[in-house]
């Protein structure tokens, strides 16, 4: 039986916007195909994990004031994480976690929270606390060359992210990395860092399967043919929402 191991970072802190749903979706889609899904959780005070032992590392978004406590903890694993990224471990980083993997996060009062500095982007909070990029968002992403797909989610962030050299997608509706941006997130073959909640994978089965296939190919050194799943709800949801949002755009 094939199996994939997920490391779920700070489940008790980065859990504000239902991001855990991403793991539930991955687990669901793996188990429906007879792939065993192992989920290990790590939070402050737990034994140090070895990031290299995992197929997928996941972290979500949290409350602003808890983010700094967490940044101090995460930075201890910087080298290990860097190695895992280079080794091809898949990283799915949402919102706060997206920001933490960059150079730094500059808060409203000008305070700097050092990031892991693994990716080249950095984030600065907009000084007006009331201004946030909030709303439904639709992206066009190219997961594999010449294969474009639309990704639907919800963004809610005050931080404006700059210098994302390889964005996750083109914004068709919504804001993106900054107010009125045409780019969103950060993407390497094995890294998706994005502001999209929703949870992201719940409305984007193609994206979920991209991650699963990537991990199976890497782990078992093969070209996996994933079994098609019954996705009627997901496809109808996409049709409904794309029509609703893109009509407005």
């Amino acid at each position, binding site marked *: 039986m094939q199996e994939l191991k997920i490391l779920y970072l700070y489940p008790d802190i980065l859990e504000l916007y239902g991001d855990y749903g991403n793991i539930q979706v991955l687990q669901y889609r793996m188990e429906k195909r007879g792939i065993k899904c192992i989920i290990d959780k790590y939070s402050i005070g737990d034994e140090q994990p070895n990031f290299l032992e995992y197929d997928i590392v996941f972290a979500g978004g949290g409350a602003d004031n808890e983010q700094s406590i967490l940044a101090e903890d995460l930075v201890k694993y910087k080298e290990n994480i860097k190695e895992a990224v280079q080794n091809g471990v898949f990283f799915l980083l949402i919102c706060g976690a997206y920001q933490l993997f960059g150079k730094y996060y500059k808060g409203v009062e000008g305070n700097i929270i050092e990031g892991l500095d693994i990716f080249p982007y950095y984030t600065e909070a907009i000084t007006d606390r009331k201004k946030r990029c909030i709303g439904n968002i639709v992206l066009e992403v190219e997961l594999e060359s010449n294969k474009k797909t639309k990704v639907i989610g919800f963004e809610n962030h005050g931080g404006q992210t700059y210098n994302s050299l390889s964005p996750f997608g083109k914004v068709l509706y919504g804001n993106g990395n900054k107010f009125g941006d045409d780019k969103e997130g950060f993407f390497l073959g094995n890294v998706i860092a994005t502001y999209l909640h929703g949870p992201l994978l719940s409305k984007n089965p193609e994206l979920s399967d991209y991650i699963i296939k990537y991990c199976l190919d890497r782990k078992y050194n093969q070209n996996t043919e994933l079994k098609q799943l019954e996705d009627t*709800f997901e496809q109808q949801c996409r049709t409904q929402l794309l029509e609703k949002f893109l009509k407005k755009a």
Partner: protein
Amino acid sequence: MNYIYMIILKFINILLKLAGKQGGNVLGKIAKKLNPNFLKFFKIDCPVIAVTATNGKTSTNNCIAYTLEMAGYKVISNKQGNNMETGIISTLLKNSTITGKIKADYITFEVDESYVPKIFKIFRLDTLVVLNFFRDQLDRNGEVETLILKINEFLKTYTGNLVLNNDDPNVARLGQANPQNKNIYYYSVDKYQYATKTMTDAGEGKFCPFCKTRLEYEYYQYSHIGKFKCPKCDYGNNEIYKKAENVDLKNKTFEIEGIKYNINENSIYTIYNYVAVQSIMSIYNIETEIVLKAFSQFALNNGRLEKIQIKGIPTTINLAKNPTGANVSLRLLKEDEEEKELLFVLNDNIADGFDVSWIWDINFDKLSENKVTRIITAGTRYYDIAIRIKTSGFDPNKIIPCPDLEKAVKELYKTTTKKYVIANYTALQPIRKELLKYK
């Protein structure tokens, strides 16, 4: 000048009435345009009680008014739930003389969390009740911590009665906002039958608000409500004013100081609301006999744990506008040992928040094990909720997405199994109307 405004507003009120409109906020909106400080104009010489919380404001406020009325007092209250400044001004306008005088024995309000400081900076307040704080429509309200800090700031100079839920670490902390205030009353509910050792649903308040240490819980009643304490600074260890004990949901009873109260609901979260009301009645020396009678008769019947028979089939309707609201509703359904079907209506209108991610914080686990045989989903995001339920492991063949409310109700009553209906904010009244039409 205000007198002239008053005459105009009274006149508009008559027109609204003739047009058959409630005018829940309209009058207040006009009044605020005429004079932004209109609230100051009213003359009040009776106690003012206010209830705020994420969940349970309307039920609790109505129960307070109901009990005081049963005691023979004239009560003015925003019973319909118009809980922002404009709604409160409207309620006062309808009940005041041209000179702004309010003739009442008590005024009780439910107040939106974010409006507490705004309103009571200028309006009289004698007793404030805070029931709970949960995550709620994050895209509209922002993080719950921001709201708490705003109320905490207001309470720093407040010296009136403060009635607080001691089992919610987000609420009990407000008792320390003003060390000079001696009128703090903490209430609590003793461990109930389905309390758990670990948190089973999404919750807040994991860390001590004073020293940031992780809080320790003896048990959780629901969400993050339970017996907690900070191991480092002892936060949470307060003297309890009123405590509900021997909670018996099956027989719908609980005890306070050895006296058994009968109620019409069977959910743990409503027990908390009743203890809050009982605390207030005790503060105002309302006779226990009257409170007992009021509690045994009180039923809100507007889609908050409302029980109706539709074509002879028992149906429970409950509002759920955030994860905790939905989780307590589902808990009720899971605690029910009979077979049942669920209708979940999810909207994403402005008043609901556009972000429906919160449905992933709802605990849909073990629905089929708990004898849920079929689920119908409706509302503007009917597919989102269908996907959510499917991913929790519930058989997708038993989920029927149905965008149209009328059709959804028809579908629901194809079988004679007991029904539960859960709807979020803007979905509640429309589905309730459809259900009653089908009756």
